[in-house]
């Protein structure tokens, strides 16, 4: 099952590389992502039935948490591939990219999907390998446009994330060392299942050191402050569908690594140590995002800083702990993925129309592009945590658990920061959305593919805001059981 799930995007990628026409490559890409999505859903059902699936000599494995990540990756991947048809099609039509680059784009896109799925289903601390691979592939996607700014962004991204990830490798080695002392030198000593079982016997000094290195390492990749400096550059310079994948999914993948290690490390060091670190980094991320969101001039960077904020919220949720804190954090991963992708798609449409990323040079989007504009405004309300949308539910759960678990100061600061972010974010977006369009901007939306993609995400945002379906709820509860 897992093998097929990994094979689908790889095959799609190879096929995309060897096609001739634009039509063919788009068809293959969309079909491939539909197949990946279906296989992802099948995996979710399988995990629901068998709890844990292990194949390929223990190298691949899936439990509820893996399945949850696979679900996020495959849904956003599917939607982004739909959106790509519209977005890259538009770029292709206007001669920004040629046939060759379009093929390259689609085949890299699916390899990127493959690496992110791999993050979810790797059975051991070899997770590191998969996360490093995501960096490599996405750096290539970023330099698709040979602009000065995108090359600069890709270089910074590559260097900062590789160094970060090197620290994570050190943390991984330390964890392996701690495990080998208990389990002996077997290949199994790195597997999640065998790690969790004996984690409480690990040497706490080593595990403390290991967790710090892991948190800094994967935290760099997850965009936690103060290691987030590459993030706004990378997310704003990548082609828009890729921005959505980077913000919505890739950050979650890195967060997944942190949470897995959190579970292992907490068993040996005690929860207080790991939780406090997560709360500190979470609050720092929220705090640093505030001024950059208030004073932002570039709307793609605005969204990127909002990702820093939301990763901080997830870290806070895990740090607050308790069933509700973790439940909120896990739910927030899904909600943020959907909402942030929607926002990037909206921003992409605006970018195609206005050809500028400056907030001041855009206005009247609701008038000139009614559907995109409306969804962009609703998305803004959703991403800043207003009811009745999905993010409100998860943020509220996290906040409540902050108070109930006795982290009063952290919870108050959290509330303060999200209120300021709401004001800043909405102020910036309303400048773009309302008023009269700039002269020379024609009326009309960007083509149906982009709108379909946004519409699908909209459904998730609205439905999860009022009601969480029982199977989905049970799935998250199982993830919470795994994390605790």
């Amino acid at each position, binding site marked *: 099952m897992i093998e097929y799930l990994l094979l689908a995007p790889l095959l799609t990628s190879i096929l995309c590389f060897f096609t001739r026409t634009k039509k063919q490559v788009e068809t293959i890409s969309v079909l491939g992502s539909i197949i990946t999505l279906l296989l992802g859903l099948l995996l979710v059902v399988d995990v629901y039935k068998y709890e844990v699936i292990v194949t390929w000599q223990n*190298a691949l494995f899936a439990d509820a948490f893996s399945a949850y990540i696979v679900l996020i990756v495959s849904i956003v991947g599917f939607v982004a591939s739909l959106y790509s048809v519209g977005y890259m099609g538009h770029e292709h039509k206007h001669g920004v990219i040629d046939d060759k680059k379009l093929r390259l784009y689609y085949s890299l896109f699916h390899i990127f999907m493959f690496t992110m799925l791999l993050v979810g289903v790797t059975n051991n601390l070899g997770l590191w390998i998969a996360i490093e*691979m995501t960096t490599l592939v996405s750096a290539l996607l970023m330099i698709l446009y040979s602009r000065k700014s995108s090359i600069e962004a890709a270089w910074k991204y590559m260097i900062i994330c590789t160094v970060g990830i090197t620290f994570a490798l050190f943390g991984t080695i330390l964890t392996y060392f701690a495990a080998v002392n208990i389990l002996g030198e077997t290949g199994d000593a790195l597997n999640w299942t065998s790690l969790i079982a004996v984690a409480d016997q690990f040497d706490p000094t080593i595990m403390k050191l290991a967790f710090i290195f892991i948190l800094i390492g994967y935290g760099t990749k997850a965009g936690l402050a103060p290691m987030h400096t590459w993030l706004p550059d990378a997310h704003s310079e990548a082609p828009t569908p890729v921005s959505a994948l980077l913000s919505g999914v890739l950050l979650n993948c890195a967060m997944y690594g942190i949470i897995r290690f959190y579970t292992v490390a907490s068993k040996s060091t005690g929860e207080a140590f790991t939780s406090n670190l997560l709360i500190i980094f979470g609050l720092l991320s929220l705090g640093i995002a505030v001024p950059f969101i208030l004073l*932002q001039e570039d709307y793609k960077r605005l969204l990127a800083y909002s990702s820093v904020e939301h990763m901080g919220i997830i870290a806070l949720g895990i740090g607050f702990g308790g069933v509700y804190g973790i439940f909120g954090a896990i739910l927030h991963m899904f909600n943020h993925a959907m909402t942030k992708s929607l926002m990037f798609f909206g921003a992409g449409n605006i970018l195609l129309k206005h050809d500028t990323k400056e907030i001041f040079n855009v206005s009247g989007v609701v008038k000139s592009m009614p559907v995109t504009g409306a969804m962009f405004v609703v998305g803004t309300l959703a991403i800043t945590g207003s009811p009745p949308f999905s993010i409100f539910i998860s943020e509220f759960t996290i906040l409540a658990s902050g108070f109930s678990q006795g982290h009063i100061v952290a919870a108050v600061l959290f509330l303060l920061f999200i209120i300021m972010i709401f004001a800043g974010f909405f102020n910036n977006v309303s400048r773009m959305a309302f008023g009269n369009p700039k002269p020379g901007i024609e009326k009309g939306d960007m083509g149906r593919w982009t709108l379909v993609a946004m519409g699908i995400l909209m459904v998730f945002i609205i439905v999860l805001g009022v009601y969480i379906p029982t199977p989905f709820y049970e799935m998250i509860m199982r993830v919470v059981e795994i994390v605790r």
Partner: protein
Amino acid sequence: MEEVIFGSNIMQLFIALILVSTFMILGSTRLYSCVRAFGIQSFLLASVAGVVALSTGKIDIYIVAILTLAIKSILIPYIFIYIIREIKVKREIALYVGISPSLIIGGILVVISYYLIRSINVITDLSSFALSASMSLVSIGLFIMISRKKAIMQMLGILIMENGLFLGAISLTNGMPLLVELGIFFDVLIGVLIMGILIFRINKTFETIDTDMLKNLIG
């Protein structure tokens, strides 16, 4: 058993030489000599792995040693030399920190690493020698990345850090499981190739590989 391996004179000699090769990189202003020193460092690392393999007799470690030799001490330096030739950069390294301060800072970093590892105090004396060398490599690699202007030197810095971690892994646990090691080798190799592509792109668009030019995206 590990104490026997890491206590042996030959091992200590190799590890000391690895540190020396790191200082050769710190003290050089010519790109070629830096790359050569890196090649020597990787060769010594492969020798360390070879000694561990000989004394434990594990096939896994033999494979790792051979891969280190082939990839890190031959293939990667070759890629570096190819890049330097193709983009025709000036062979001198531009520095933010001069050579003599660099060497002094390098020395300080080694001392700090040594005391840091000593203070953790969970590892036996003899393998802690290897581990403190590994910490020194990581911190000196990081220092090279921030004190040199050329993009190529940042790439070299990352690889030095990676070498340091390799030394750490093999001294702590006789290396990770083979599957994981293979994955890491794969990532390092692909990483070098992609950074190479990026350097070509930087050179083509900015007409230099000094990272001074990469300062436009802020705020």
